C-alpha cells in the first residue's frame, strides 16, 4: 500500500531531517512510527501525505508515485497532522460535508458514515457547533471522522491519540482494527509506546532522520518490552 524508498529531506541545505529512509506498509498493517521529538516522524508523514517536497527518494501509494501523480495518491489516503487546525469558521457538519464533497462521497455513504463515526465518538449533538468553539479533543474527533468519511486505503496519522479522552481513544483503536481487517493500512506516529506495542503489528524506530529498526513487532522487540528496546536503540544507536 505504501512504499518509501531512500527518502531524504534536508532543511536549510545541511540539516537532514530524514536520511535515506525506506519502509513498506502492507494492506492490513497497523504500522507504528516512533522516535524522539525532532527525529523525523512528522517530516516523513508530511512527505508521504504529499504536502512536503523532498530531496530524493521515492514514495509510492498503491503503486503510484506521489511526486508524479499526487492527486491520485491523495484520493487513496487521509492524513491528520499532530495539531489539526481545522476551519474554525465552519460548523462540524459543514466541514465534514466539505471533505465528503472533495472526495466525491455519495449522499448515502456520507450519511451512514457521519452517523456511525460521529455517534461512536459522541460528537453527533455537537456537529452544529462552530469548530472554533470546540475543545482540542473535539477538533481531533472531527478530524478523525473527516479522515474516515471517504474510506481511505491508507491512513496517515501524526499522534492521533493526543487530546482524546480514554473512551474516544478506545473507540479509535477499535476502528483501527476494523479498518485493518477490511484491508486498509494505517501508518501513524506516537509517543505512547504501550499503545504501539498492543496495537501495531509492525513498528519502525527513527533517530536523527535515520531508520534504526523496522519490521514485525514480534521480531523487532523479541522478548523485551517496546520501551526497553526503544531506550536501548535510541541511546546507543
Amino acid at each position, binding site marked *: 500500500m505504501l512504499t518509501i524508498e531512500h527518502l531524504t529531506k534536508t532543511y536549510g541545505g545541511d540539516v537532514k531531517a530524514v536520511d535515506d529512509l525506506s519502509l513498506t506498509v502492507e494492506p492490513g498493517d497497523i504500522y507504528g512510527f516512533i522516535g524522539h521529538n525532532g527525529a523525523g516522524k512528522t517530516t516523513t508523514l508530511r512527505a508521504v501525505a504529499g504536502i512536503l517536497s523532498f530531496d530524493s527518494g521515492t514514495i509510492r501509494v498503491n503503486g503510484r508515485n506521489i511526486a508524479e501523480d499526487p492527486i491520485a495518491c491523495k484520493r487513496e489516503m487521509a492524513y491528520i497532522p499532530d495539531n489539526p487546525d481545522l476551519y474554525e469558521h465552519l460548523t462540524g457538519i459543514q466541514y465534514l460535508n466539505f471533505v465528503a*464533497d472533495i472526495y466525491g462521497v455519495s449522499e448515502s455513504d*456520507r450519511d451512514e458514515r457521519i452517523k456511525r463515526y460521529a455517534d461512536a465518538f459522541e460528537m453527533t449533538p455537537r456537529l452544529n457547533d462552530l469548530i472554533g468553539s470546540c475543545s482540542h479533543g473535539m477538533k481531533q474527533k472531527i478530524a478523525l471522522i473527516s479522515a474516515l468519511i471517504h474510506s481511505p486505503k491508507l491512513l496517515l496519522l501524526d499522534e492521533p491519540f493526543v487530546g482524546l479522552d480514554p473512551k474516544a481513544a478506545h473507540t479509535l483503536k477499535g476502528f483501527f482494527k476494523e479498518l485493518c481487517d477490511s484491508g486498509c493500512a494505517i501508518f501513524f506516529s506516537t509517543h505512547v509506546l504501550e499503545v504501539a506495542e498492543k496495537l501495531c503489528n509492525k513498528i519502525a524506530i527513527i533517530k536523527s532522520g535515520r531508520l534504526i529498526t523496522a519490521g514485525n513487532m514480534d521480531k523487532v522487540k523479541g522478548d523485551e518490552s517496546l520501551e526497553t528496546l526503544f531506550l536501548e536503540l535510541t541511546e546507543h544507536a
Partner: protein
Amino acid sequence: MRELWILTKLQISSLFGINKILHMKNSEEKKQGKRALGTLIAMIFALGYFSVLYSIMMAEGFAAIGMLPTLLGVMALASSALILMFSIFETKGVLFGFGDYDIVMSWPVSIRSVAASRVISMYAYNFIYGLLLLLPAGIVYAVKAGPAWWFYPLYLVLMLLIPALPTIIGALLGTVLTVITARAKKSNLVGILAQLALVVGIMFLSMRTSMPLSDPGKIAGSAETLSGVVARMYPPAQWFQDALTAGSPVSALWLLLLSLASVAVLLLWLGKSFVSINSRIKSKPRGETFVMRRQVRSGQMAALVRRERARYFSSSLYVVNTAFSYIMLLAAGIALLVKADAVATFFEIPQMAPLLSIIPFVLGWIVSMGTTTAAAISMEGKSLWIVKSMPIRARDWLTAKLAVTLMLAIPSILLASTLIVIGLKPGLLDAFWMYAVPLAYSIAFGVFGLWLNIRMPRLDWQNEAEVVKQGGSVMVCVFSGMGVAFVPGLVAALTGSALVQPVTVILLLALTLWMWRSLVKSGERRLLLLH
C-alpha cells in the same frame, strides 16, 4: 517596564514578517522571502515618491496664495483620518481576539503591559503609514519655506505624536464595536455593517477637506475654507501646524499632553476590561443540537467556492477592507446618476467628454482595491494542510479564490456602470467601455492578487490584520491598482484618444492570461512549498 519591552519586542518581530524572512533556513524560501521584502521596500519607495509629488502639488497651490503652512495641517489631518480607519479595523485581531491570547495571558506579566504592547504594535504600523504622508510633506515644506533649525528636531518629535491620538481613538471606537457585536446573534454581520458605517462616515467627513488643485482662484477660496475645516474638525492637526510653522510652544504642548492623556485613558480602561472583552470574544455560542438528516452532495469546485466564500464572510476585517471598494463603486454610480453635473464641477471638468473617458479607469481603480485574492492564500493560515493533503488541483484551489472576488466585483460593476450610463447617457461605445474597462480590471487584479500572494504568502499570522491590512501582497496589489489605473486615465484625459480604453483592456487581459498560465504552471510546486 522590562516586561512591556519584552512583549513589545515580540509584537514588533512580526512586523511585515521581517523576522521570519531573516531566520529562514531553506534557501528557496529565503530567496522568496528576500524577493517579497524587496518588492515591499520598492513599493514603499514608490508610494513615498507619489506622496512627494502630491505634497509638491499641494505646496505649490498653498504657496501661490501665501498659505504654505496649511500644507502641514492638511497632511496631519489626512494621515490621522487614514490611521483612524486602520485602527478601527485592526482593533479586533490585534487588541482583542488574537491567536496567542491564551499563551500570552498565562505569563506572569501585567494585563496592562499586554494591552500596552498590543497598542504599541498598532501604533508602530500606523506610524509607518503616517510617515508616508508626513515625511514628504515636511521635506517639501522645509525646502519651500526654509524654516529655522529647530523645525527639524521638532518635526521629528511631533511626527511621532501624530499617529498616537487617532490610534487611540480608533482603538476605542473599535473596542466599542467589538463589545457591541461580540454578543449579537449575527455578530459578524453586525460587525461588518457597523464598521462600514463608520468608514463611510469618516470618508464623508474627509471629502469635505478635498480641494481643487488646478485653479488658483478656487484654491484661494478652498484653502481658506480648508484651513478652517482643519482647525474645526481636528484641532491636533492645527496644533501640529502652528507648533511647526508659527513656533507655538503651547500648541506643541497641547499635542503632547493630549497624546499622552489619550494613551493613559486607554490603558487604564484596558487594564480593567481587557480580560472580560477578550473572554466575551473567545466564548462562542453553541449551535443547536445536531440531528442527523440527509446530507446534500455537491461537486468539488462548488465545495471549494463555498468554503472560500464562508472564509471571506467569516472575517469582518477581510470583508470591510475589500467590500468598501464596492460600496464606493455603487456610491460613484449613484452620484453620477443623480448629480453628474455637480461631479463634473467638483473635478473641474467643464465638458462631459473627458469625464466619460476617465470614469472607466476610476471604476477600474476602485475595483482593484477591492480584490480579495491578494490575501486569500495567506488567509488559509495554519489550516493550509487541509487543501494540501486533499486530491485537489492547485488550479481549482486558485479558481475558487478568483471566483469569490469576481462574485463581488461583477454584480457591483454591472450595477454601478448601469447607473452611470443612465446618468450620463453616453454614446454606445463609451457605454461599452464603462462596463468593459472595470470588468477587465476586476479579472486582472483578481489574478494579480493570487499571483502576488502565492509569492508573498504569510501563513503564520496570529491575527487577520497581519495579512488583510498589513500583508505585503495586499499593499502591492492596492498600490499597483492605483498606478495601473492612473496612467491610462491620465492619458485618456489629456489626449482624448479613443484608443486608450481598448489598448488598456487588451493589455490587461494579455497580462492576466500570462499570469494565470504562470500560476497554473507553477501552482502545484508553489502550493507544495507553502507551509
